């Protein structure tokens, strides 16, 4: 069995999770403060991938980044970057597709912290950054862990959006979920089963671990 789709999937999930963690933390913090109409609309847009058929998202990404026109053409000509049928395209699609899984838990955890925690820190002369890293983040550890694991696990399971923008190129865009579909199409049920079982096992271990961890180790101190 070719293990490349599994490695590719893990690489995609890893990169997506790191990128989303780095961008998601400040965005979630910003969204957790106040509720202007602009923030509400932005939140709705970020949440869209939860309910939108993945093929629809993939279709529009395919159109947007097609090297024949618009943004895709400009990116190709200016930076020699192509998002369609490439690994970076998968990363971009995954970041958009998994964004609500990273932002949602972090944002609601931050909103649940009493505003007086930040105020107490500010009154001690601490900057917003110090307050975020020393006071807010340590007190949302369980939700942070949940967000990281959910994002990783969700990216492992992507299919529609990945197929639309990435296609099925071995070693480049052929991730495990697509390899399953491909194997079934070729009536190779044994290989499909092997890929499926590996994906199932990884996801199961991840999700169970986060539940166990949150139950015994990182129970929210505010509960």
């Amino acid at each position, binding site marked *: 069995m070719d293990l490349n789709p599994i490695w590719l999937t893990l690489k995609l999930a890893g990169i997506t999770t790191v990128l989303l963690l780095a961008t998601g933390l400040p965005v979630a913090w910003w969204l957790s403060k106040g509720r202007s109409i602009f923030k509400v609309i932005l939140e709705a847009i970020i949440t869209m991938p939860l309910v939108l058929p993945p093929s629809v998202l993939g279709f529009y990404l395919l159109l947007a980044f097609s090297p024949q026109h618009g943004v895709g053409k400009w990116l190709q000509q200016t930076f020699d970057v192509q998002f369609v049928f490439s690994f970076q395209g998968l990363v971009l699609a995954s970041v958009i597709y998994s964004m609500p899984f990273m932002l949602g838990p972090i944002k609601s955890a931050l909103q649940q912290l009493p505003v007086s925690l930040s*105020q107490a820190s*500010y*009154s001690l*002369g*601490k900057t917003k950054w110090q307050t975020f890293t*020393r*006071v807010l983040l340590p007190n949302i550890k369980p939700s942070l862990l949940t967000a990281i694991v959910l994002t990783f696990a969700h990216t492992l399971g992507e299919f529609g959006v990945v197929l639309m923008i990435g296609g099925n190129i071995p070693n480049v865009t052929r991730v495990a979920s697509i390899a399953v579909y491909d194997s079934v199409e070729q009536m190779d049920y044994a290989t499909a089963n092997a890929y499926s079982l590996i994906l199932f096992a990884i996801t199961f271990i991840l999700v169970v671990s986060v539940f166990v961890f949150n139950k015994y180790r990182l129970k929210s101190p505010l509960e």
Partner: protein
Amino acid sequence: MIRIDIEKKLKTYQGKQVLKIAGQFEQGSITKIYGPSGAGKTTFLKVIAGFTQPEKGNIIVYEVTWLDTASKISLPPQKRMAGFVFQDYALFPNMTVMQHLQYATKDAAWIEKLLAVGKLETLTTHKPEYLSGGQQQRLAILRALATKPKLLLMDEPFSALDPEMKTELISELKLLFKELGTTVFIVSHNPQELEGLTELFISL
């Protein structure tokens, strides 16, 4: 001298009301703020600390303008560094007693002194969830004092303390305030508490 003259709209169950407070307070004075629930006592403290903005007014603390809505000056809470004791304590669940104080100051001798005043010397490694209500409240007071603030704002700071502890703590705190030259505003519901202090009645 601290000069305060502010106007802030409040949303109450009786509709929109305006909180208007003006006064001058000597350095080192302790003022007890009292008044009915919902009158804006906590809001008044939060305006001084810079957590919320009034529509109109100015706050001048020892010749430094903290707030002047006319010339659009409003120092952030980090620059005002008013000590603040929150009604809900606002302790950091991730920090031990010692870490709370070390987060606020690097002065180890001062930390030792504060711990003795609050009688928390034996509990330095405890996190708030393992402290009693009274111990949590004392920690909140000590943390607010850790930065040696020139202005201290206390919102119902003794509500969880037994009478004996309260009397003892108050007399020790008065000595600390004197040593630091701290001006103090204390919100209190209890008319008998803190007798003999300057009083400021707030009502809408």
